[in-house]
């Protein structure tokens, strides 16, 4: 069984996000970069599948050289090798353009299963996996919280409103991983040492077989007009150091008379 994980590097959840002066992006200095937390579920699942069934695991990511560090985290956790997609032509790729690039790697690697995180915590779009599945002509399952691999197929659960769907799918398939699927392991010290020597293959425009106008900003269908700060929230009315009953009565009254919500 060969499992390929698509991973994205994102700012740490706790990072302060500042919009640049031209409103076209965020200030990237002083940001701590991490593997998107949902992708950790995908990495862990790939490793567990290999531990049980044997085979090979590969991690693929796209971005400047900065993203290799997060890829090494996946390698340190136990993924066998990596593919790093970057070319100046890739800059500004939207989800569809990104999926085209990743799909070119998947076609070359020919895995039995592609795992992604449910969404990357920067843009929270959850689009790339479905684009991948369509480009590859494969089935997809979004937000898997339970997975069992059987001969040539998989049974998985995904959360929906008011319950879970149980889905049976043939392989190959693209799945996205949700919280609850597993508990991602920490990279061990020997793992970190080993990861430094693991192969990371470079994948540029030439390897994709795509033309420059299919990727990057030129190939993107989503155009960012501007970044906007959060609207100012007027300071709240916070009650303290009073009798509980009086504070509760005040808030209930405000909910009815000021907020008009009850």
């Amino acid at each position: 069984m060969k499992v390929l994980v698509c991973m994205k590097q994102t700012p740490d959840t706790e990072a302060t996000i500042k919009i640049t002066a031209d409103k076209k992006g965020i200030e990237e200095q002083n940001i701590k970069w991490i593997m998107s937390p949902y992708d950790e579920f995908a990495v862990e699942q790939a490793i567990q599948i290999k531990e049980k069934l044997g085979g090979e695991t590969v991690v693929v990511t796209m971005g400047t050289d900065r993203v290799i560090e997060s890829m090494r985290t996946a390698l340190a956790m136990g993924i066998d090798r990596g593919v790093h997609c970057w070319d100046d032509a890739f800059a500004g790729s939207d989800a569809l353009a990104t999926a085209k690039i990743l799909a070119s790697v998947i076609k070359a690697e020919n895995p039995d299963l592609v795992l992604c995180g449910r969404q990357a915590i920067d843009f929270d779009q959850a689009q790339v996996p479905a684009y991948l599945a369509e480009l590859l002509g494969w089935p997809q399952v979004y937000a898997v919280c339970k997975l069992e691999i059987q001969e040539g197929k998989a049974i998985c659960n995904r959360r929906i409103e008011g319950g879970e769907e149980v889905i049976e799918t043939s392989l190959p398939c693209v799945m996205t991983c949700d919280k609850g699927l597993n508990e991602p392991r920490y990279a061990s010290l020997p793992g970190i040492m080993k990861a430094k020597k693991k192969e990371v293959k470079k994948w540029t425009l030439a390897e994709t077989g795509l033309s420059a106008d299919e990727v990057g900003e030129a190939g993107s269908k989503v155009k960012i007009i501007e970044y906007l700060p959060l609207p100012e929230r007027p300071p709240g009315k916070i009650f303290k150091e009073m009798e509980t009953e009086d504070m509760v009565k005040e808030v209930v009254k405000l909910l009815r008379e000021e907020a008009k919500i009850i």
Partner: protein
Amino acid sequence: MASGVMIFAEQREGKFRKVAYELLNIGRQLADQLGGPLSAVVVGKGVKDLASSLGKYGAEKVYVIDGDPFELYSSQGYASAVANAIKQADPAVFLTGASAMGKDLTPRVSAKLGVGMASDCTALEVVDGKLQITRPVYSGKCYIKVELVGTPQIASVRPNTYPVAEEKEGGAEIVEVDPGISADEIKAKVVRVEKAAEGKIELTEAERIVSGGRGMKSKENFKILFDLADVIGAAVGASRAAVDSGYASQDMQVGQTGKVVNPNLYMAFGISGAIQHLAGMRTSKVIVAVNKDPEAPIFQKADYGIVDDLFKVVPIMIEEFKKLLQE
């Protein structure tokens, strides 16, 4: 020439989700500004009568894909059916709800049509005859405004962003669409749906939410939140800390690794307000926080707050709401 707006009217077991009616409302507003008709697409089994009921909510035409392979949701089956309906109707804008189904379906439809899309949007406006879409990014720490190249312009809309369309007189023309896929071409199939307890209000659709955090201290203590929720007709949520401590189930988690909610009223009890939690509830219209710790970050986001022991506050609040709602 593409014109008008089409919405995906999500149904399960012969009932539309609330977001379908919200989309008919915003869809009507956009169609009026852009010009062209408002249409809907319904996919399922035995859904023709259901589909025609959308005429009362402003849909002029309803495109229907009805058949055995569509009784339960599948990405491949529904995406093929919806993409065919879009090709037939040729709308300028196509909208879905950012529900579990919508999040799975919409990008696959976009991929089939070779266009881009915007996910989980919180504002849609027409500027110079084109859609401008605003959506939260970076865990809700800021927004981006985007536009889409190509036709149709596709967006999934966060549930509870717009009010539902009002019911009026009116009927819709039903148009049957060829799904363009057969049952054996659908490789990932839902074999069954395992339901949680019946009658619970779904968090992502709830207009009022009462949520508990680490400060609840035990699973048993959550009962007071369920009591409060019953009084005001709210759903009960929880923070990651409460879920990880075993006080609440995973399907109750609000936040980055849980659900994104968008209610009119969000009441947080014993929740400190970590960024992961804010990411899931920041767009709530009114936020109430109750916490013993006056330094808890949740108070910076709250419209109203009480610094006190929640176990003293909740019982009094239950009585006060009861009194108010009896008036």
